[in-house]
């Protein structure tokens, strides 16, 4: 059995790849395209390994029943699972094609070679197309886990530069997102929501539907939706119903400061060793040493903020339900829908359709379930249910608020003898898990509001290696002694789930900020101080690569006093910061260096960033660079601007004005350095740059101003507060 769960569950070539008689190759992946160009990368792996031209590879859309069940597209696992599985399946297929050609030509396989979809005899020059070799018998055989990847597949990668799949459709508006699907007879649906999580429907006028211009009203307990042929009518009907509905709430949202709730609420605590929480008592910290430093860092709730509100299309006919969705997990979603609607798994089909980037568990699955509920109430009509912008902002499951408590004991040289990192947070994983104990429906919104109401399941601590709260709480440095503690805090006020990197962004922000504080306390250059404590060669290599491209050494040599604020070189008054991490302590290595300036108004201006990454063997350099740049920009937005706000009566971050994100004017120049490792396993990179980006920005702000900002986001107010506290 393979250690790759995707291959273990789908061990045959035909699960992944079909070579068709026309010579095209159909590839099925259970991982879905969410803008991270995974389908392009997997198609490239197949093309290179099989030795067929890229344009002859067809990626089949993910669909339950046809695609391999690969769980969720998450955690930067796709290349290691799907990419790896397809590589071995393609290598096995290629060898089989050569063997068939050898039999057909009556020659020894060693005299044959493949070239662009053909098998050719080196001796006679005779060729056979891959298509001809499967005409009589399609390829059905187990994937050989030992199949040797084609050497040339590793050497060829850079040229010709391939055009990502779908890109033309995107830039011309021709590609249809799920929001754009409007089959014959489709209805447009909207949900009418309570003012906040804890409210229930108290009353609705009995004659309401009559005033809705023919729009249908779907009501089940406190779940309210409208549907109409014309989207504009649906919007108007939703507004009427919202105005007429009366809600009641036994309680509001707890609006005490989140730091108070994180510290004061009931919690479960676990020591973390080798990145895994242990069900053991948490060891007491050793008594303070002569030189002890401590600092507390905080991150607020932050949102996925997908550019498109969530949407889904559903059709219920003849007892069968089909749902088109931008979900990251078509199989887990199918199970949850079947459970909620009391249907058999076989009667539910879930098809992936393009959506906007989601960056984790956003409203996609909720919208799919809501569309299914409305479709069941109005059978035989396709129902396109779209969330409003306000729905998306106020009802998506946010990235949880976190509190990181760091401490270190130092020796006389200022080096770390003991390092302690504790993280307090809500859970980061609330997704439905097929096979998990108990009903899964309560993990979705709608089932909590229907008449036959299901409660949200109680939080259970995630004890997996590098799970949510403790992800990247373990430092990459060779400290003599460490103490890592995870605290799962209960009864926190907002709905949460997985947001890109889970706990890693804030843990790396805290740890790499703290390391910077220690470097300054030791009077050391932050780069040198990191190198002093770093034994791992690949981590050092990305740190050095980023520093070199950034020109870090040159500026140090210019005699710039460490932490002195306005300094030599570059922009006068600009500061520079650097940070490094290996995502999940197991994926890509990434270092980020940033130059930033702080204006008189305490606003931070990012001037320049350098990102260096080692993602193992590189498949698609363009796609890799895009993921790193995108991760930097998103993390810069979290770091500088973002915090979900609420009061007793509900979420008050309800649009892009009350929850701003980074715009074009604030994006710095970004350079990316890709450290290629041909022959090394693929390492996921989609989340690698986020944590180092946040810390590098904070470190640059300190370098520019001498102010250490530990509370995210680093708005002018939070900088002023930090300046006042220091």
């Amino acid at each position, binding site marked *: 059995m393979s250690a790759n769960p995707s291959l273990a569950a789908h061990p045959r070539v035909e699960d992944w790849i079909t070579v068709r008689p026309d010579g095209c190759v159909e590839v099925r992946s259970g991982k879905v395209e969410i803008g991270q160009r995974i389908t392009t990368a997997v198609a490239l792996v197949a093309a290179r390994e099989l030795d067929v031209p890229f344009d002859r590879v067809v990626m089949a859309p993910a669909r339950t029943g046809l695609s391999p069940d690969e769980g969720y597209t998450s955690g930067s696992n796709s290349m290691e699972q799907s990419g790896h599985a397809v590589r071995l399946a393609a290598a096995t297929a290629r060898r089989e094609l050569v063997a068939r050609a050898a039999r057909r030509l009556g020659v020894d396989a060693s005299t044959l070679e493949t070239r662009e979809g053909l098998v050719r005899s080196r001796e006679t020059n005779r060729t056979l197309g891959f298509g001809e070799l499967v005409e009589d018998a399609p390829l059905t055989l187990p994937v050989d886990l030992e199949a040797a990847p084609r050497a040339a597949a590793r050497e060829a990668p850079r040229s010709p530069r391939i055009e990502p799949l779908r890109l033309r459709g995107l830039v011309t*508006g021709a590609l249809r997102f799920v929001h754009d699907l409007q089959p014959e007879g489709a209805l447009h649906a909207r949900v009418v929501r309570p003012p906040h999580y804890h409210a229930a429907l108290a009353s609705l006028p009995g004659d309401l539907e009559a005033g809705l211009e023919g729009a249908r009203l779907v009501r089940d307990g406190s779940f309210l939706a409208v549907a109409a042929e014309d989207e504009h009518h649906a919007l108007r009907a939703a507004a009427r119903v919202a105005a007429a509905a009366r809600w009641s709430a036994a309680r509001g949202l707890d609006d005490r400061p989140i730091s108070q709730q994180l510290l004061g609420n009931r919690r479960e605590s676990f020591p973390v060793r080798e990145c895994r929480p242990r069900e053991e008592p948490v060891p007491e910290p050793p008594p303070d040493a002569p030189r002890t430093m401590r600092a507390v860092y905080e991150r607020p709730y932050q949102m996925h903020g997908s550019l*498109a509100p969530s949407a889904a299309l559903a059709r219920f006919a003849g007892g069968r339900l089909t749902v088109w969705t931008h979900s990251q997990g078509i199989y887990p979603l199918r199970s949850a829908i079947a459970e909620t609607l009391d249907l058999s798994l076989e009667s539910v089909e879930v098809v992936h359709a393009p959506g906007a980037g989601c960056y984790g568990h956003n409203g996609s699955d909720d919208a799919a379930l809501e569309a299914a509920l409305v479709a069941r109430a109005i059978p035989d009509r396709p129902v396109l249910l779209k969330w409003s912008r306000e729905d998306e902002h106020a009802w998506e499951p946010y990235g949880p608020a976190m509190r990181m408590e760091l401490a270190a004991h130092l020796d006389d040289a200022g080096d770390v003898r003991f390092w302690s990192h504790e993280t307090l947070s809500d859970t980061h994983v609330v997704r439905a898990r097929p096979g998990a104990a108990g009903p899964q429906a309560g993990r979705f919104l709608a089932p909590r509001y229907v008449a036959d109401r299901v409660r949200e399941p109680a939080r259970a601590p995630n004890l997996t290696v590098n799970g949510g709260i403790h992800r990247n709480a373990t430092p990459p440095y060779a400290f003599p002694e460490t103490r890592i503690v995870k605290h799962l805090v209960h009864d926190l006020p907002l709905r949460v789930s997985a947001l890109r990197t889970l706990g890693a962004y804030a843990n790396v922000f805290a740890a790499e900020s703290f390391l910077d504080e220690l470097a300054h306390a030791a009077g050391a250059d932050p780069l040198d101080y990191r190198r002093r404590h770093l034994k791992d060669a690949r981590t050092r290599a990305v740190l050095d690569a980023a520093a070199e491209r950034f020109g870090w050494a040159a500026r140090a040599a210019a005699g710039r006093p460490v932490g002195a604020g306005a300094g030599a070189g570059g922009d006068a008054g600009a500061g520079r910061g650097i940070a490094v991490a290996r995502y999940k302590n197991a994926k890509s290595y990434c270092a980020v260096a940033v130059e930033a300036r702080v204006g008189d108004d305490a606003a931070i201006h990012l001037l320049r960033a350098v990102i260096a990454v080692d993602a193992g063997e590189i498949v698609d350099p363009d796609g890799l660079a895009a993921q790193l740049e995108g991760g930097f920009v998103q993390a810069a937005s979290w770091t500088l601007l973002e915090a979900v706000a609420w009061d007793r009566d509900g979420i008050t971050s309800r649009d892009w004005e009350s929850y701003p994100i980074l715009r074009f004017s604030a994006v710095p120049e970004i350079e990316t350095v890709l450290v290629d490792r041909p022959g090394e396993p693929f390492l996921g990179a989609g989340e690698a740059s986020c944590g180092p980006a946040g810390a590098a920005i904070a470190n640059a702000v300190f370098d520019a101003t001498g102010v250490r900002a530990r509370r995210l986001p680093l708005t002018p107010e939070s900088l002023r507060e930090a300046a006042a506290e220091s």
Partner: protein
Amino acid sequence: MTKSLTLDVNGASCLVRVDPDMPLALVLRNRLGLTGVKDGCGLGQCGACAVLVDGEPTLTCVRPAADFEGRRIETVEGLGTPEKPGPVQRALIEARAAQCGYCTPGIVVAVTGLLRKDPHPGESAIRAALEPHLCRCGAHPSVLRAVRALARAAPR
């Protein structure tokens, strides 16, 4: 109460019967099938629904279609096709300047509007033209590279 409107869209004259307060974006998307006009916020805050109106990048999700009678409307579909992408679209393809691509049609429209007025925009003009456009994937650096390349390549 519906009203007949004649709209000039991508060079064709289109007759539609709609509610007088129906936003242009809904008419373009749902009546004319031009779903390259994206639905991002419906509040005039994100830029996803931009089209060119008499050459000016304009948001369409709030203002009623009735306001646009007699104006020349161009959507992203009017600026090129997958088989024959227009110059801005080609530059974005070359720079790989889209991730999920939901913001991309609005960006194509904004850049086209900018370059028609000023084929050699400087950095601040480029950023100002793109400022109304949100992109959550962080495709900004590659978009900026694409537009700078277009500005450099434009004949003097």
